[in-house]
């Protein structure tokens, strides 16, 4: 098993005829994802790499049956509408790839998702990848190198940075450790699935034996994960690195969510919370693969191929 994406999930791509939509559909197909249809208003009847295109989500569902996941590649200002369309049509997981989605739009999507019992990942997510099983979004760059870099195994990766999701997986893979699923939760302030939510999914996944986190300053995702560990709800070993030690309060560091405000979300605070909860927190990113390896060995877990 893996979490969120595997070869059994039926996937829809919203904005499939756009530049990104086309390129990433090809990538997802190459990764083994079961992309069954796409949606672009006014482009119904076309196809993209053999994937049929429909005018809206209900029409796509009528033609292709129930959809598990929709991946959204539309301009940032249209993301709210697209996500709500998919959720209201009954899709239970929506992946919002675009960057620069207004935060009040993200909150409106969150309200809609709660109402319909759906989840979303992002906005501003590179995506999700389960090695050997499939991917969602743009993670992996190209299928060929992604297959080479990301090995199947027992570590779940959760990251607040897209590039660092791939980096974590690559370096851990180099150390001989494979991965169940890599999840980039997104760089924004308001996100669908946050680090603690994804950690709970990994906790429930029999294949995942340990969790690696790339955290950042700002917000409370890391502190909330620590609280779950303290409450005994996340019991698998957690290895983490937190970026932004050198960051000062009040300036945003690229990601909308990476800002220390009112003394909250500091580097020190996050490290302290995680360490007190029993996580292994490394000081330099380069120490992460070895720490992951050591953690697995200490826990008596066989290291994947």
């Amino acid at each position, binding site marked *: 098993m893996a979490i969120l994406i595997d070869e059994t999930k039926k996937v829809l791509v919203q904005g499939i005829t756009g530049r990104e939509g086309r390129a990433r559909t090809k990538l997802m197909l190459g990764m083994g994802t079961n992309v069954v249809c796409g949606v672009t208003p006014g482009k119904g009847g076309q196809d993209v790499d053999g994937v049929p295109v429909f005018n809206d989500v209900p029409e796509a569902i009528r033609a292709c049956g129930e959809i598990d996941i929709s991946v959204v590649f539309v301009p940032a200002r249209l993301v709210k509408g697209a996500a709500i369309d998919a959720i209201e049509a009954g899709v239970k997981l929506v992946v919002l790839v675009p960057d620069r989605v207004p935060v009040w739009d993200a909150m409106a999507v*969150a*309200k809609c998702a709660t109402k319909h019992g759906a989840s979303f990942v992002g906005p501003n997510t590179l995506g999700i990848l389960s090695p050997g099983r499939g991917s969602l979004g*743009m993670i992996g760059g190209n299928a060929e190198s992604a297959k080479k870099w990301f090995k199947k195994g027992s570590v779940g990766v959760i990251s607040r940075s897209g*590039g660092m999701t791939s980096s974590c997986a690559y370096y851990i893979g180099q150390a001989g450790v494979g991965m169940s699923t890599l999840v980039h939760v997104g*760089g924004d302030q308001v*996100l669908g699935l946050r680090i603690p939510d994804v950690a709970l999914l990994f906790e429930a996944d029999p294949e995942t034996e340990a969790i690696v986190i790339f955290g950042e300053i700002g917000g409370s995702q890391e502190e909330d994960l620590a609280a779950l560990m303290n409450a005994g709800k996340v019991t698998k070993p957690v290895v983490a690195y937190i970026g932004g030690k050198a960051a000062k309060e009040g300036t*945003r560091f*690229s990601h909308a969510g990476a800002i220390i405000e*009112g003394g909250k979300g500091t580097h020190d605070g996050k490290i302290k919370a995680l360490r007190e909860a029993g996580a292994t927190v490394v000081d330099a990113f380069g120490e992460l693969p070895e720490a992951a390896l050591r953690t697995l060995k200490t826990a008596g877990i066989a290291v994947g191929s």
Partner: protein
Amino acid sequence: MARLHEYEGKALLAERGLTIPKGAACSTPAEAKATAESLGGACVMKIQAWTTSRKAQGGVVFPESADEAGKDAERLLGMRIGQFPVEQVLVEERIAIKDELFVSMSINDAARAPVLLLSLAGGSGVEERADAVHQMPVDPETGVDLAEVRSVLAGSAIEAKFHDGLVDAIDGAVRMAREIEARSVEINPLVTTDDGRVVAADSRVTIDDYAVFRHPELGIDIARELDHPPTRLERIAYDIEQADHRGTFYFAKLPTTGAADERTIGFHGAGGGGSMMSMDAVVHAGFTPANFTDTSGNPSSAKVYAAARIILQQEGVVGYFGSGSGVASQEQHHSAYGVAKAFRELGLDIPAVIRLGGNSEDRAVRILEAACAGLPAEVVGFKKDDPPARCAERFKALVDANGGKVWTPRKRTIPAFVGSSEAIVFRIDLGDGWEGNVWIDNQNCDEKATEVVLANCGGVLEDHGDGLSFAVSNEELLKKDSEMIACEIECALAGYPVVYVDLPIPGIDDLEGEVC
């Protein structure tokens, strides 16, 4: 900028029916004096600066007369908060305060919704006395539950005649937050007065950077959250980012201490998390980044070139450190060409370490090191299997060996054939307000040089036996900057420096001898 000054936030609150103190923002002592006069002399004066402790820094004063206000304004307008001068003071009427409330709406990442904090005992030390603060959920569509606000007030010692006014003020503030898509709105304090009014005595408002495009009415010129008003370099960089949509480019000045032993560096990251992680590594090695920069999302060579040029407008840096996630999915050779072009034009004489890990990293490092081999300082490229800590250590060794040399911003070197009537020239259009020209030294294009140009121009040019001509339409030529920057570098490396992409940076290259 995406933060509003106190007086700007108050004006927006007033538009929604809140009462604000009489007064005006002033940029000169004379204006301050006149405003004080109109208020009857005695007044309150506050610097308009983004700092949490204006009072402690002497930025809030209580002049007793208009003359005194003029003198105070002279002093306050000469203040610096961090490195940044105070440009305005807010001169307001004095208020006889009865009750002080703390009202703050901010977005809570765990709730995925705004949260309203309300304290009936003012805001000082509000973090330390969480039990005295009422926390209420805010629905992103319908706002705050006013009945709940009313019940909190009903249980307080605040006189009942103020309750309606307070509820209206809180409702107005939350409504404003939603309308202008604020990330946070704070009124600290919201006060009741002896003369029976409810007055917003202060305001702090932050707008969502990503929603600024929907709010031209706010007059925000730089949608970027910083802890200071944007500097000239930040404005220049922002204009480049807005002009060229290929990839992202983020440039922010960082605070430096100015201590004698401080070693500041130009910092150039790639990818948000990777940049932050790399910055941590170089800070750990004992350096202070003068800036935070991030070019990612498959940026064009031109955009990376502009980033390097802007970073190298910073005086006094001892080196240039570049590093990102290490496993970038973008084609790193585009970045290598862009950085190398900037270094060559400026004759870089401080060491540079650039970690170009990711797609096409072998090619990228080869390009960077070859193109910079003739420079006075050493330029070293690293790949994904080189951890940032090792890159930072190497960088430190290079800086140590460079004898304390510091960078002086300078004009770029432009080859002599630029502007020649014999040269082939075509325009490059990078977007709104940013453009350049590609120059080819036709006079010196012998058979061999022509061959090299053709081999490296990415199909932009052709030769049917009668010299170089364009192989693509005029419209396509406008976007061939990355191809031609690669061509410029490759031709120079082959010994035929006959191509030059002239990309003047607005605000830098069009100003004679001026340095930011």
